[in-house]
């Protein structure tokens, strides 16, 4: 039984009941040397409580995948430590891999020539658990992900959405209680993505899994995650719950649409407010102004003086995408 003893010792030292599922401290990684060196991960530290779902957000090249691969030991970091269930992943990887699995980069991570069920059994064994011991779980997973009817079908014969579900199922088929999902809905249509998110949420709650999700899909992050870590240029630039992040950027705004706003009125609005966005489509002009309710009266006054007839007025609520763009934009500007 490989690595079992090492894990027991590690957990005994750390005290499993009180330890966060994931502890990352001072993780750093630079690729290359000298002038061509690229800092991919820069002193990243965070913890993830057991049973929580954390989203990892960041623009392309921000270092999300390198962070995940460094945590999992696939990339050797220059500095830092990672503990999963109290086990030092880099010092005792074999013990840690009994507790963690990953679906990386939303790609296929199973064998297309094997059937769905054969994949679940194979990868359960590879991850160190006897497939017969988790056969019941496999049947439940197949049912939860609507794969029961395709259980004995080779994966290559399934649709893209089904294949993605099989990838997820083969990761959840193991004994891992910590799971990393990199772009789990990549390439899925809206309906398939929604189904996968719903089932993922249900399975996570049911099995008390600890999950780190990396995704460009804000719906995935908002739907599934308790907390969001935003990464920019290899550093953590924000780390909070979705609600707190939205509250932190709760700058009220108003969107005005009209067909007779002239340049002089637009200029007056731009001079009166710091954040104004103007979009024109033919004779239709859309003015988005970031301001509070008192500012709205000033805006209304300017428009009235300009003789503007309003087609519509809406309030603008910040969403996670806007928060993400603001946060990562401020990194780019720095």
């Amino acid at each position, binding site marked *: *039984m*490989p*690595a*079992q003893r090492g*894990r*027991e010792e590690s957990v005994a030292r750390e005290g*499993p*009941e009180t*330890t966060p*599922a994931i502890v990352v401290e001072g993780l750093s*990684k630079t*690729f290359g040397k000298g002038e061509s060196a690229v800092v991919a991960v820069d002193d990243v530290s965070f913890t993830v409580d*057991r*049973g929580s779902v954390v989203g990892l957000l960041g623009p392309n090249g921000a270092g999300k995948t*390198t962070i995940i*691969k460094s945590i999992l*030991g*696939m*990339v*050797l970091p220059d500095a830092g430590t990672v503990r999963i269930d*109290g086990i030092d992943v880099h010092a005792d990887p*074999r*013990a840690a*891999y*009994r*507790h*963690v*699995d*990953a679906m*990386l*980069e939303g*790609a*296929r*991570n*199973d*064998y*297309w*020539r*094997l059937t769905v069920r*054969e994949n679940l059994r*194979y*990868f359960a*064994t*590879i*991850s*160190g*658990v*006897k*497939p017969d*011991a*988790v056969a*019941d*779980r496999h049947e*439940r997973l197949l049912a939860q992900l609507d794969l029961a009817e395709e259980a004995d079908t*080779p994966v290559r014969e399934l649709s893209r959405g089904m294949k993605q579900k099989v990838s997820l199922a083969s990761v959840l088929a193991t*004994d891992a*209680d910590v799971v990393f999902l990199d772009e789990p809905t990549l390439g899925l249509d809206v309906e398939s993505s929604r189904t996968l998110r719903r089932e993922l949420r249900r399975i996570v709650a*049911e*099995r*008390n899994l600890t999950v780190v999700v990396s995704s460009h899909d804000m719906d995935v992050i908002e739907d599934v995650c308790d907390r969001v870590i935003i990464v920019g240029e290899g550093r953590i630039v924000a780390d909070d719950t979705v609600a707190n992040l939205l509250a932190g950027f709760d700058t009220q705004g108003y969107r005005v649409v009209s067909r007779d706003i002239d340049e002089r009125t637009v200029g007056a609005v731009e001079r009166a407010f710091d954040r104004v966005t103007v979009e024109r489509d033919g004779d239709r002009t859309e003015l988005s102004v970031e301001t509070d309710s008192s500012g709205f009266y000033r805006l209304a006054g300017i428009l009235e003086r300009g003789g503007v007839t309003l087609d519509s007025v809406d309030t603008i609520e910040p969403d996670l995408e806007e928060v993400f763009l603001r946060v990562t934009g401020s990194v780019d500007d720095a």
Partner: protein
Amino acid sequence: MRDGTADGGGAPAPDPDRQAGYLDLLRAVGYREYLLFVRYPADAVGGIVVSLIFFGLLFFGGRAIAGQALTDEIEGIVVGYFLWTLSVGAYSSISNDIGSEVQWGTLERHFMTPFGFAPVAFAKGVAKVVRTFLISVVILAVMLVVTGTTLQLDLLTITVVAVLAVCSVLGLGFAAGGVAVLYKRIGSWLNLLQFGFVVLISAPAFDLGWTRLLPLVQGSALLQRAMIDGLVLWEMPLLDLSVLLGTAVGYVLAGYAVFAITTKRARRLGVLGDY
């Protein structure tokens, strides 16, 4: 304890009865090979047909050119060709497999295993060698029928000598697999090395002492004596068997070391699993 229900918030205690051992690992990779073998027989049959066509060209073409001289040597050629097909399969089992796993996106999952990346790669290599052995036996049988040759087929002797001979090549395959982890597209170039096995198999092990330390050489010489002269395992000189065993173990360990070093370098460079 961990049967799919919530476990109360603490890190789950490992249940030894649920944990898979190395035997389970071997069974899993072996079963996968079996499934692919029976589900996609065209792959195996195609390999056999290509090997036999190649042998046919060698045999009939050679006889047309060299006449009786080749016919006199046919037993050695058959045994050598049998060992060559076995060696090519063993060599490519790990290196080609790694290239394929990278393309399929499954390499990382074989890295993230409590068994360790190298032991899993080795287990997969062993499973493929068993499959290759079965295919090579079919090729051997057809070669014997086509050429009208008879050989001494002591199963124990042939299995032990062939397995130990192939182990040295498996070690080379391990090293090549390690290089493939670092440089994914080098696989096709590494496959060219398999033509060098022809030289090793036909090297005069008993005439030049040091050549017997090369992969395949000692095994090829002993296999020739077993299958042509009828020499059985316990009649073989202890020194010859020791060299055979030593080269088998030595090359496997050396290949394993190269694999471990290149994998670590791939992790440092961040290219593990990248294509």
